[in-house]
């Protein structure tokens, strides 16, 4: 293809995005667009799959049948999100096996929040309330992103996430209305999950490398700092209703800006976890690798069986 032809295609592509039309897998797209989408979408899919582990940790210990069923359904939803996000990523010309390889080798990232441990039942409430709450704020703008399969997957994901968030908040509410011991459990969970939740929005804008390009492609509509502020403004009043305290001495309402001011995030901790040295990075990755390697003989068997069945059909037809 000549340079002129490529330039022409690029112009058509840019115009399409500017008109808010979707880019579909068969459309021409710049290589960088394809790569960026593979990176972000697979990172999102990996987060769903790894995210099953901290919550799955409490399935066998859920305190009532109703909570157990709700938790199972929630973790199953996450597997479902992973499944259609992987499928959407596959439309960009990469296989699920390759994507798994990238996760297992440590090349691909997933959301750092899942590298924190779930040590009490209240953590299941806090994850639903804070982590899913932050995820929704990050993800709602993606429902109108430029790549069609991603946008459509996100519409469904967001619907289910908002259900999960309500469920999480309801767990917290029950704890806060319960005994002093239960309320303390809820406060302790908020103390541990608050700051990591703020880190879910990524580095501050002046440190963020992908923002400008992502804005252009509608992979992002607001900056990290704007989204983080939105989360804080939305969540603090919810903590007030619960009657528990956000663990930030500098947190206070600012009449002038119409937002909450908040304290300094510990960016050393953020980078430590991102670089693979959080409390559970090793365990989470090892669990995924074990499931994959331990399941190899099962996948091989399914493949061999399918081939045998296909052979039988051919023989019958012949």
């Amino acid at each position: 293809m000549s340079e002129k032809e490529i330039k022409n295609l690029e112009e058509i592509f840019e115009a399409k995005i500017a008109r808010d039309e979707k880019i579909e897998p068969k459309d021409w797209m710049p290589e960088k667009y394809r790569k960026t989408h593979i990176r972000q979408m697979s990172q999102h899919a990996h987060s769903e799959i790894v995210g099953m582990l901290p919550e799955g940790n409490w399935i066998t210990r859920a305190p009532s049948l109703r909570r157990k069923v709700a938790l199972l359904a929630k973790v199953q939803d996450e597997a479902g999100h992973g499944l259609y996000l992987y499928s959407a990523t596959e439309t960009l010309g990469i296989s699920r096996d390759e994507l798994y390889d990238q996760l297992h080798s440590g090349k691909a990232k997933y959301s750092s929040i899942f590298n924190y441990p779930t040590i009490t039942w209240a953590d299941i409430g806090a994850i639903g309330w804070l982590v899913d709450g932050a995820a929704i704020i990050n993800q709602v703008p993606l429902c109108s992103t430029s790549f069609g399969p991603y946008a459509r997957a996100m519409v469904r994901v967001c619907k289910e996430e908002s259900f999960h968030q309500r469920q999480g908040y309801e767990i917290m509410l029950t704890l806060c209305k319960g005994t002093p011991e239960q309320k303390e459990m809820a406060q302790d969970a908020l103390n541990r999950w608050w700051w990591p939740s703020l880190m879910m929005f990524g580095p501050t804008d002046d440190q963020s490398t992908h923002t400008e390009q992502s804005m252009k492609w509608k992979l992002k509509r607001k900056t990290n700092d704007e989204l983080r502020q939105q989360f804080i403004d939305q969540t603090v009043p919810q903590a007030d209703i619960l009657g528990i305290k956000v663990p930030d001495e500098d947190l206070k309402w600012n009449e002038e800006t119409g937002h909450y001011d908040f304290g300094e995030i510990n960016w050393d901790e953020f980078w430590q976890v991102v670089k693979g040295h959080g409390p559970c990075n090793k365990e989470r990755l090892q669990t995924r690798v074990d499931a994959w390697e331990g399941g190899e003989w099962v996948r091989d068997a399914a493949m061999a069986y399918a081939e045998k069945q296909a052979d039988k059909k051919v023989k019958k037809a012949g």
Partner: protein
Amino acid sequence: MNSEKKDSRLHENKIKYIYGIADNSLILGQRLGELTGHGPTLETDIALTNISLDLFGQVRSYFQYAAQISEKEVTEDDLAFLRTEREYLNVLLVEQPNTDFAYTIGRQFLFDHFHILLMMHLQNSKDDTLVAIAKKSIKEVNYHKRFSSDWIKRLGDGTEESKEKMQTAINDLWRFTDELFHTTEADEEMIKAGVGVDVKTLKETYYKNVSEVLEEATLEIPDLKYFQKGGKDGIHTEHMGFILSDMQYMQRTYPGMKW
């Protein structure tokens, strides 16, 4: 025996009868719950979680009913979480561990084929609530049976390695199948009252159905003389205490709290 005493005994037996069915779903659901997030593929992960969800859904219906007819003030959660090990009446098969995927599938398969027959016959019970639960469960259990039978065939007639693993699991789990067809005193009372299913009559069909699938899967049907039993009388394998330690952890650590 005066009629009031007789009624009360019938009542107690009905609750025991319900435990005998519901505890199977409870403990198997619990075992499957251990696997969420650890499956060999995302699709099997979702399917096994789904089966677990179905089973817990059934458990809730059974225990809500048992709590309702109980003379004590109890809830579904009291029945699920606050009995001692000797009071759980599930069969030994469902408490066996997830040694590997072949064991998980083998356990599911051997239980599903029993479960479907039980639900089909429970539809003829004189107890309307049990009939309603059975009718709702049949659709779910049919799906479970199809899922596990398909995997028996895939693993049995897949690779050499999978065949060996599947055969080992079936051989090991076979000794727990005979207990499925035992009846307790409470069961016999309920059969007489037209409420319970006489599982002894299901045995032949069960082994025929199971054998057909195993044959199609090119697996050998174990030929055993000695079988294990005890679960229906509350005498469990050593695994059971650990299952309950997890399951009852919150209820035991924080008695009387609402969640």
